[in-house]
C-alpha cells in the first residue's frame, strides 16, 4: 500500500460515512499509546498542535503550529496546502471556511482539553470520525514497513549497546539516557525506552535513580522511532550469571512468544494470538497470571500514526491482514522470577507473522 492509496481509502471511507469534511487533530504530545490522525494523513510529526482539514473531493490543508515550522511540513506533506498558524483551532475554522455538509473529527478524545473544548464549540455538529482514518491505516504502507524494519535494526543495536555498557553501580536513569542518546546517533528521532532493574521486578517501569546491583534482572522495552514509525523489542538480561530457574522460566516465555507468532496469520482474530501465548503458560500452571491484574495484553500496535490492529488481547476480534505491524510480547510476571520481558515486532505476511528482528529474544547474562 502506498500513502496515496491510503488517502484514497480514507476519502472512500468519508463517502461511505457521508462525511463531507474530515478534521484530524493532534495536540503535539506524541505518545506510543495514542494514535495521531495528523501523522496518518500528512506524514508530519509536529512540534505543536496540528490538524488536517480534508474535504471529500478537494485539496487537503495541513495546519501547523508554530507557524515557523510550516516549511518543514511542506517537505513531508506533499500534495497538501500548508498553513502555518499561531492557533490550531483558528486555523481549522479558517480552512473549513464556509464549506457545507457534515464534518467528522478524528483524534478528539486524545486532544488536550484546551483544544478539544474550543473545537467542539466551533464545530458543534461534528461527529466522531476516528474509524474513517484509522480503519484505512490498520495495515502499514510500504514506507512505514521499511521504517519499521530500520527502527527494529536500531533497537537491536541499542540492545547490544545495553549489554556492553550496563554494569552494577550505574543508575537506571544513566543507562536509559545513554541508550536513548545512542539510538539517536543511529537515526532514531524518539525512543519509548522503558527500562528498570531489580532482584525481582514487579513490572517494567520507567527508569529512576536506583543504582543497579550484581544479580539484578534488567528488563527493557527498547522502542526507537524511525521517521515517525515505532518498532519495539522486549529483552531481559541479568547482571551476572542467571540462575537455572530463571533460565527455565525465560525459555517458557520464549515458547509462549513463538506460539503467538505461529498463531498470527491473515484472517485470524487477534485474540487467537493472545490465546496461543496464554495456552503455553497455562499448561505450565500459570493460568492465573495470564489475566488482570497480572497481565492485560500480549502485544500491541505500533504508532506514531495508527496503533491498529490494537492490543494482542482476548477481547480484540480484529481480523489480521497482510501489512499489519504489531508487537507480540508475552511479557509476564511469574511468582518465582518477577516480571520478565520477551517480545518481537512482527509484520503480517501471506505466510504468517514475520519477526522484524534478526535475533529473537533470549535471556542474556552480562559479565560483571
Amino acid at each position: 500500500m502506498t500513502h496515496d492509496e491510503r488517502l484514497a481509502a480514507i476519502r472512500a471511507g468519508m463517502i461511505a460515512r457521508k462525511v463531507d469534511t474530515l478534521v484530524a487533530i493532534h495536540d503535539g504530545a506524541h505518545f506510543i499509546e495514542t494514535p495521531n490522525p495528523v501523522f496518518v494523513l500528512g506524514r508530519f510529526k509536529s512540534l505543536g498542535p496540528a490538524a488536517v482539514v480534508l474535504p471529500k473531493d478537494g485539496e487537503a490543508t495541513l495546519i501547523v503550529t508554530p507557524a515557523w515550522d510550516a516549511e518543514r511540513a511542506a517537505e513531508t506533506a506533499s500534495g497538501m496546502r500548508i498553513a502555518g498558524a499561531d492557533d490550531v483551532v483558528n486555523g481549522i475554522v479558517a480552512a473549513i471556511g464556509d464549506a457545507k455538509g457534515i464534518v467528522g473529527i478524528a483524534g478528539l478524545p486524545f486532544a488536550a482539553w484546551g483544544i478539544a473544548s474550543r473545537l467542539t464549540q466551533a464545530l458543534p455538529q461534528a461527529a466522531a470520525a476516528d474509524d474513517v482514518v484509522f480503519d484505512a491505516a490498520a495495515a502499514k504502507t510500504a514506507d512505514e514497513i521499511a521504517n519499521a524494519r530500520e527502527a527494529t535494526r536500531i533497537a537491536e543495536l541499542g540492545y547490544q549497546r545495553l549489554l556492553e555498557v550496563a554494569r552494577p553501580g550505574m543508575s537506571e536513569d544513566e543507562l536509559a539516557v545513554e541508550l536513548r542518546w545512542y539510538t539517536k546517533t543511529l537515526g532514531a528521532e524518539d525512543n519509548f525506552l522503558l527500562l528498570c532493574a531489580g532482584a525481582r521486578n514487579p513490572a517494567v517501569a520507567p527508569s529512576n535513580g536506583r543504582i543497579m546491583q550484581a544479580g539484578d534482572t534488567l528488563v527493557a522495552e527498547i522502542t526507537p522511532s524511525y521517521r515517525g514509525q515505532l518498532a519495539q523489542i522486549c529483552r531481559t538480561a541479568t547482571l551476572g550469571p542467571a540462575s537455572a530457574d530463571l533460565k527455565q522460566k525465560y525459555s517458557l516465555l520464549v515458547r509462549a512468544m513463538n506460539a503467538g507468532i505461529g498463531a498470527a496469520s491473515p484472517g485470524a482474530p487477534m485474540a487467537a494470538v493472545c490465546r496461543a501465548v496464554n495456552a503455553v503458560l497455562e499448561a505450565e500452571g500459570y493460568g492465573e497470571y495470564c489475566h488482570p491484574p497480572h497481565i492485560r495484553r500480549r502485544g500491541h500496535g505500533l504508532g506514531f500514526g495508527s496503533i491498529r490492529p490494537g492490543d494482542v488481547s482476548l477481547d480484540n476480534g480484529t481480523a489480521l491482514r497482510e501489512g499489519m505491524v504489531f508487537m507480540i510480547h508475552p511479557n509476564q510476571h511469574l511468582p518465582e522470577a518477577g516480571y520478565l520481558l520477551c517480545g518481537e515486532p512482527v509484520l503480517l505476511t501471506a505466510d504468517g507473522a514475520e519477526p522484524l528482528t534478526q535475533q529473537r529474544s533470549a535471556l542474556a547474562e552480562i559479565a560483571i
Partner: protein
Amino acid sequence: MHTMQSTLLVGPADWDATRMPKDEFLARTVALWRIAPAAAGVIVYGDRAHHAELAYLTHFTPKLEAALALIPRVGAPRLLVGGGAGMMQAARPLTFITGVQPLRNAGATVAQWIREQSGGGRPVLIGRPYMPHALHQEIAGALGTIADKTADLAALMRRKSPREAAAIGEACASLDAAVTAMRQAQRSGAGVTATVLAGEHAAHKRGAQDVRTLFSLDGGRTLRPFEASVEGAIDPLQVYVAVRQHGYWAEGFAVVTASSNPYVRGANEILLYAIKMIAPGRRCGHIARETNEAIAPLRSHTLTQHVMGNAIGLALEEHPLIAADSTDVFEAGGVYSLRVGLSDARERTCFAVAKEILADKGLSDDSYAAAEKTMGLESLVALVATVGSFSMTCLTAATFRIDPPAANPTPLAE
C-alpha cells in the same frame, strides 16, 4: 520555544530532599490556599508534556503516563499515577508524597476523595488546559463544573526561590557545556547530527534530565528538530538548545562557527542591551519594542519577531511572554529567557526569489512586488541573472557529467 515532545521521559527525576526539601513544597501548598480560599481540595493534572504545576506542588515528573495529585486542605496529599500497581515502586522515588497509588476510574476516585474531605467546599482544578478531553469529561461528569486555577498558580510560580534559582543555574551550566561540546565537535570536522548530538551528550553527562535541540540546515532561516541523520557539516550552524536539570529549564540560541560572524556579534550586543533594560516593574512590552527598534535596519528573525522571550522555570515557556503587546511587568525574583534573532531581509529575499523562479519558472506578482521593495529593481535583475548563470553551470556540469576538481569540492555539496 516549541520543541519536539518525547514519547517517554528517561532522565533523572528522583526527588532529592537536599536540593528541594519537603518544607519548600509545603510552603507552596500553603500559598495555594490563597488562590483557592474556599476549596476543599485541589486536583492537579500533569503529563509528559505539561507538568510544571504538578512538579511545583509534588516534585513528580510523569515520565510515562499522566498523574493526578489530590491535595486536601487538611490531611496528606495523594498522587494517582497512570499504570498498574506494579509501576508504583518506580514512581515513589520521584516525589515526597507517600500516598502513591494507581490512577484508575478517575471520575469515581476523585468524587470519593472529595466526599471524604471536611468542610463541604468544592474542589478546584489545576492543569485543565492540558488534560485529555476524555479525562476531563470523566472528572466533570463526576464532579460537575469545576473551576480551573492554572493561571492563578502560574502567578505564584513566577518568583523563584533561591533553591529554584540554583537549579536553573545548574541547567545553564549544562547548556554551556552542550554548546562548548558542539563547538569542539564542529572544529573536529563532525557533521550536523554528530555536532548536535555531541552537545546533547555533554549535557547528559552533567546530569541533565532532558535535552531538546533544534538546528538549521539553511543558514539559520528555519529551525528543525532531529528527524534523520545529516552527515554533512555546516558552518555556521545555528542551534537552539534547551536543557532541564533538577526539574528546571534553561535555553539558548547559539551559532556554532569557526569564523567571526557580524550578525552574531550584533545579536549579542542587542541581547546585552535588552538585558540591561530589564528591571522590576518594567513592562515586558516596552523591552520587546525597544529591542525591535535596536535591531533596525535589520529585522527580527521569524522565530523571535512576535515573542522574544518568556519566564522560564519548571516549564520551558512560562508567563509572562516578552512580546510587543504585553502589559505584564518583570518581577524581582523572576527568571526570564530572552531571545534575539536577526534576519537580513535582502538575504532572505534572495533565497525566496531563487526558490520560486526555479520551482515555478517565474515570480508571482506578490513575490515580485515584495522583492522589488526589499532589494530595488537593479539588485533584483542581478539576482535573477545570477540564478540563471548558476543554473546554466549546474545544467552543463550535470549533462556532461563534469565532476568538480577533487581539490576544489563544491561548497554546496550538501
